[in-house]
């Protein structure tokens, strides 16, 4: 069984549209590994707009997304397959 590699990005406080742009670039970069279930990508953001747009974009590309709230930020996790 493959070990799930979690790729983390902290984009808190960054200028718009850095959040969505970074997310889209990273998802594309790791699309193969995501589809193979080798990696999971976690974005830490405080951008309320991105909490809608990142999950929507990832879902449109077919990746399951979970959002959890932390202290002063949201954690958006994108994985390649349903867990």
């Amino acid at each position: 069984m493959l070990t799930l590699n979690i790729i983390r990005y902290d984009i808190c406080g960054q200028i718009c549209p850095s959040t969505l742009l970074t997310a889209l670039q990273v998802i594309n970069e790791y699309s193969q590994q995501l589809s193979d279930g080798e990696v999971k990508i976690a974005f830490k953001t405080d951008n309320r707009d991105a909490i809608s747009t990142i999950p929507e974009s990832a879902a449109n590309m077919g990746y399951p997304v979970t959002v959890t709230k932390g202290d002063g930020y949201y954690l958006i996790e994108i994985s390649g397959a349903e867990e």
Partner: protein
Amino acid sequence: MTVAPYPLIMIICLVVGYLAGISMHRSDYCMAGMFRDLFLFKRTFMLRTLVLLVLSSMILFEVARLIGFLPLYPFPLLYSPTLANIVGGMLFGLGMVLAGGCVVGTLYKMGAGSVLSTVAFAGLILGSFFYAEIHPWWAAFIKSTTFFTGRITLPQILGVSPFILIFPVAALGMFLVLRWKNEGKLVRPSAAEGYLQPWKAALFLSVLGLTSYVLIGMPLGLTSSYAKLSGYIGSIFFRDHIASLAYYQAIPLKYVHPLTNTYLQGGGGPRFDAISAMQFPLVAGIILGSMSSAVALREFHLYYKLPLKQYVSAFSGGIIMGLASRMAPTCNVWHLMGGLPILATSSMLFLAGLLPGAWLGSKLMVHVVLRR
């Protein structure tokens, strides 16, 4: 009974600003983002709610005018169309995208703890000061490129009653909005705590705009206060120079406040006047409203370890936007929530300039600022 106008105006504007700040933070109502995302991601979700905001304001203003609640129509500080509207709009569009928020977006983001927006705010003030330096030259340009002198709105230019044009535009627009609503294009899911659907924020903001128009005599405006701040800060360092600049001496606002029937005046100079009474409480209200919303949601947090390029972008975007706010003259809030709803031609030209400006800003943002 006579009521002192300034305390009344200040309280109204503070409350309006506070409510606007909360709703903008909850829905992340970023107008700069709406135009930027149109060009960058072909996303039109938020822009649709801006269409609703303009249409809703249009209908509310027209109803208020018909029942006699708007004695000042068109409202003060709205002028005949000039080429400056397009040029200023373009610079404004560029500046707001680079700054990561427009003149009001910068405020609510700053209130929620954004360090970059605070930097953009400093840029806005510096840009306003730069404008004061070029004012005589730019005022001459405005004067020489003004057309339809004496006429401000499209109905005035065409010589018809506002209703004749506003009714079909509003009806067609609302037909479009209702279609979006039925197709589910006005709502979106969000995991953000306390999320306010942006279409609700749009309707609420249009009500706040009407409140300001009826109670203050004009819709929401805030950028003259940035010029005033630049004058106050500039006076600390070079008092004589600031006092000598024509822009800071001018008093463009002269009107009778409808609610108290008092003659008031104001300008961009560093002194307390009607503009101070309206705009400083509005600015403070927006920041406080957004801050209390962010604190209540436990989302207020200062992140400052950010790429230098983003600081440069926010500051230079702020400077460009501050300069453009005076060159256009005035900002997106004034034109899109005030002028456009009464079909002011200067506001239409501002929007025509804003679009290519925002396009250019989006290109720079992706290829320079955020280049990995």
